[in-house]
C-alpha cells in the first residue's frame, strides 16, 4: 500500500485521505462491522418474518441459551489469534461438566469441585500447548489429541448422565435477575464477565499484545524478544479454562452432566469466532467480534427452531457462512499481499 501522505487540498482529497487513515487505523475492525451488519440484518429479517422476534425475553434467552458457547468462543479467540486452533473445547466442556456432576453427587462440596474442574480444563490446555510449541505438533493434531483424551475421560467418569442435586450449582441457572422483561442468570453473568476479562487482557496487557504479535508474525515476535513460548502455551491454557467454565455453565443449564455434551461444539465455536471477524491465519480479531459471532449463531438456531425446521439446517447454514467468510478472508489477504 502506498505511503500515507496527507492528500490534496481539495475537499474530495481530504475525505479520501481521512478514509485511508480510518481504514488503516481500524482495518481489523472491518470484518467485525460486517458481522454486526449481518446480525442486524438477521434480527431485522426475523422480526419482519415472525413479528415478535425482537422481544426482551427472546434476546435474554439468546444470551443464556448460548452462554456456554460464548465462553468457549472467548477462549478460542485467544488460540486462533496466535494462529492456532483448538478442537478440544467441546470435549473439555463435557469432561469437566460430568466430572463436576460426579464429584458433587458423591458429596464433594461445589467450592472444591468447581475449581477442580477448571483446573482439569487448564490441564488439557497445557498438554496441547506443550505439544504445539515444544514438540512442533500442528495445533490441529495436538488439539485433536486433547479432544480424544477429554472425550474418553468424560466416559471414564461416567457412561451415563448424572443429575445435579447440589443447590449452589443449580442456583447458577435458576436465579433470575429481572429488569422489566429483561432477565439474566448468574450463568449469563459469568459469560459476560469472561467476555470483559478477555477484552481487558487482550487490549491492555503485554501478554495480550504478545498474542497479537505472535499471530501476526511469530518469527518477528521472537526476534523482538517477546516471550513467545510462554504466551502460546498460556493461550491454550486459557482455552482450556474456558472449556471448564463452559462445562460449569452448561451443566448448570441442563441440571446434569452428560458425557456426550458438546459434540461438534468446537466447530460451532470456530465458526462463531470466524464469522465474528477473527482471521484464521491469526493476528487479527476481537473478543467482541466473537461475541457477535455467537449471537449470529444463536439467532440462526432460534430462527430454525421457530420455523420448526430440521435442526440439521443449522449446521449447514453455519458451515456455508463459515465457508463464505473463509474464502472472502483469503481473497482479501491475497489481494493485499499482492499490493504490498
Amino acid at each position: 500500500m502506498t505511503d500515507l501522505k496527507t492528500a490534496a487540498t481539495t475537499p474530495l482529497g481530504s475525505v479520501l485521505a481521512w478514509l485511508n487513515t480510518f481504514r488503516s487505523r481500524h482495518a481489523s475492525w472491518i470484518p467485525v462491522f460486517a458481522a454486526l451488519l449481518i446480525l442486524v440484518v438477521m434480527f431485522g429479517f426475523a422480526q419482519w418474518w415472525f413479528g415478535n422476534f425482537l422481544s426482551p425475553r427472546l434476546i435474554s434467552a439468546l444470551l443464556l441459551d448460548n452462554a456456554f458457547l460464548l465462553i468457549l468462543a472467548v477462549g478460542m479467540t485467544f488460540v486462533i489469534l496466535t494462529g492456532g486452533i483448538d478442537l478440544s473445547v467441546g470435549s473439555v466442556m463435557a469432561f469437566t461438566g460430568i466430572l463436576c456432576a460426579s464429584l458433587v453427587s458423591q458429596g464433594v462440596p461445589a467450592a472444591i469441585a468447581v475449581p477442580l474442574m477448571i483446573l482439569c480444563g487448564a490441564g488439557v490446555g497445557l498438554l496441547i500447548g506443550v505439544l504445539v510449541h515444544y514438540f512442533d505438533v500442528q495445533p490441529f493434531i495436538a488439539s485433536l489429541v486433547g479432544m480424544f483424551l477429554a472425550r474418553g475421560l468424560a466416559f471414564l467418569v461416567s457412561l451415563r448422565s448424572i443429575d445435579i442435586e447440589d443447590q449452589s450449582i443449580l442456583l447458577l441457572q435458576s436465579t433470575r435477575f429481572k429488569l422489566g422483561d429483561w432477565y439474566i442468570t448468574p450463568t449469563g453473568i459469568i459469560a459476560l464477565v469472561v467476555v470483559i476479562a478477555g477484552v481487558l487482557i487482550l487490549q491492555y496487557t503485554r501478554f495480550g499484545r504478545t498474542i497479537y504479535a505472535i499471530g501476526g508474525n511469530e518469527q518477528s515476535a521472537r526476534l523482538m524478544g517477546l516471550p513467545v513460548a510462554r504466551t502460546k502455551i498460556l493461550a491454550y491454557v486459557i482455552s482450556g479454562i474456558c472449556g471448564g467454565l463452559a462445562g460449569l455453565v452448561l451443566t448448570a443449564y441442563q441440571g446434569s452432566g452428560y458425557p456426550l455434551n458438546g459434540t461438534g461444539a468446537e466447530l460451532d465455536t470456530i465458526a462463531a469466532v470466524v464469522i465474528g471477524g477473527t482471521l484464521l491465519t491469526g493476528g487479527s480479531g476481537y473478543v467482541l467480534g466473537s461475541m457477535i459471532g455467537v449471537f449470529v449463531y444463536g439467532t440462526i438456531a432460534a430462527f430454525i427452531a421457530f420455523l420448526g425446521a430440521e435442526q440439521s439446517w443449522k449446521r449447514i447454514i453455519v458451515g456455508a457462512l463459515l465457508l463464505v467468510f473463509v474464502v472472502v478472508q483469503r481473497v482479501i489477504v491475497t489481494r493485499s499481499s499482492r499490493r504490498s
Partner: protein
Amino acid sequence: MPVDNDVAPIIEMRGITIQFPGVKALDGVDFTLWPGEVHSLMGENGAGKSTLIKALTGVYAIDSGTITVAGEPRIFHTTADAQAAGISTVYQEVNLCANLSVGENVMLGHEVRRGGAIDWRATHREAARHLEALGLTVDTRTGLFSHSIAIQQLIAISRAMVTDSTVLILDEPTSSLDRSEVEQLFGVIRELRDRGVAILFVSHFLDQVYEISDRITVLRNGKLVGAYEAALLPRNELISSMIGRELDDLAELSSSAARVIDRSGSPLLKATGLGKKGVLEPADLDIYEGEVVGIAGLLGSGRTELARLIYGADRADSGSIEVHGASARISTPRHAIDRHIVFSSEDRRAEGIVGDLSVAENIVLGIQARRGWLRRVSRTETDAIVKDYIEALGVRPADPDRAVRNLSGGNQQKVLLARWLATAPELIILDEPTRGIDVGAKADIQRKVAELSAKGLSVIFISSEIEEVIRLAQRITVMRDRRKIGELESNGLDVDDVIDYIANEGQENVA
C-alpha cells in the same frame, strides 16, 4: 566522518571461527566497529557476511575467538543476550508485526503501563517521540501494513532506539527502496551516526556503499580480506578483493570462448525489454544456436532475476520474448519447458533437488513432468538414461537409488544437470552451477558445458567466478544494481577488463 582513534571501539571481534559440518564458514576473522561510524560489510555469497552478523546477534555460537562490546568480553547464547548488550538488527524482511499499529510496533514489549494495564495514550506519545527524533512524522495509530517498506524500515530503526542501542545492524536495507526512499534512509543513518551510534551496513549495491560508508570490511571464503577507509578504496580493488581468481587447469577450454557463432539467422531466443518492477530494470538478451552467453555481475545485480524471467519462474511486468523468431508467451516454467528451455536454479537445496527422492527419480523428473502422470517413464528407460548420465557426468557414488540429499553438493549439481540435459533442451540456463562445489566437479561441469555447446546446445551461463564466464562464453552480458549495463565479446578478455567494466561503465566519476 573519519574515525577518531582516541575513542575506544564499541565492538571488537577477534579470531572468530565458526565451523559447520564440512565447511568453515568463518576462519579467524577480525572485525572492529567504532561508535559514530557507518561501516559496510561486503562479500559474495558464501563469504561469511551473514555468518558474522549472526555471530554478533546471538543466532550462532562461535567455536573460537572473542567478542568484546564496549570493552567487556561477551558471550551471546540467544538473540535476547545480544539485544541486552545494545546490539539491534533491522532485517531485509523488516521483522515487525504488520498487523499491529505503528506505535505498538515501536513500543512492543516496552509499552507504557499504569497500574499493570497499558496506557495507550502515553504509549503512542512515546512512540511518536521516538519517530520524530529520526525526522519521521507518522500517525502512530495507523496499521504498519499500510506503510511502505521504506517507512516500515525506519520504524524498525526507531524501535532499535527505544532500547538505546549502541550498535545498529542494517541487513540489506535498500533492496526494496526507490531512490528517494534511499535518500530518506541515509538521512536517518547519518543522524544516528552523528549521535554516536555505530552502524553496520550490509549491502551489495556498490554505489550506495560508497555513498554512505566511512569504512568497508571485505570477507571472502570465510576469511578477512581487509578493512579499508571508503574514501581511499578504488572500486576496482574492492571488486577484485570480493571476487575470486582461482587458478585451475582448464586452459583448453579457452577455445570455447573463441568459437565462432553463426548469427546470420534469427536468434534461438530474443528477450526485449524484459523487466519486473522493483526487481529488474527492462533488459534485452538474445542468444543463438550453439552459443554460450554469460551473465556477469555481482550478487544482487539482477542476474538470477533476468534468468528467472526468461524461464517464466517469475512473471515479467514488461517486455516480450521471441523463440525461433516467433512471439512466445513464457509466464510459467511449463511454458518454457514446452519450448525446450530449461533452468537450473542457483539454490540447489530449496529449488533444485527433491531431497528424499533417489538420484534416478531426480534425473527422470524433468522428462516425467513433461510427459504427465499417465505415461510413466519405464524402468528400463529410466535405468538406461540414468546410467548414461551418471557415467557422462561422473556422479559419485554411482548409485541410482541413493537419496539425493545424501550426495555432496557437486554431485547434486551433476544430478540436476542430468535432469535437464535428459529432456533434450535447446537452451539451458545455468545459474551458478559451480558454486559451493569441489574443484573436480567444477571442472567436470565446465567441460560438459563446453562440449554440449559445441554440439549445438545454447547455454546462458551465470557465475560470480568471472574467469569461468570468460572461459566458456562467446558473449558476456554485464549487470549491475539490477540493470544490464552492457555487453562484451569475451574473446581476448581477461578478468580485470570485466571488473573494470562492472566498476566503471556508466559511472560519472571513476573511483
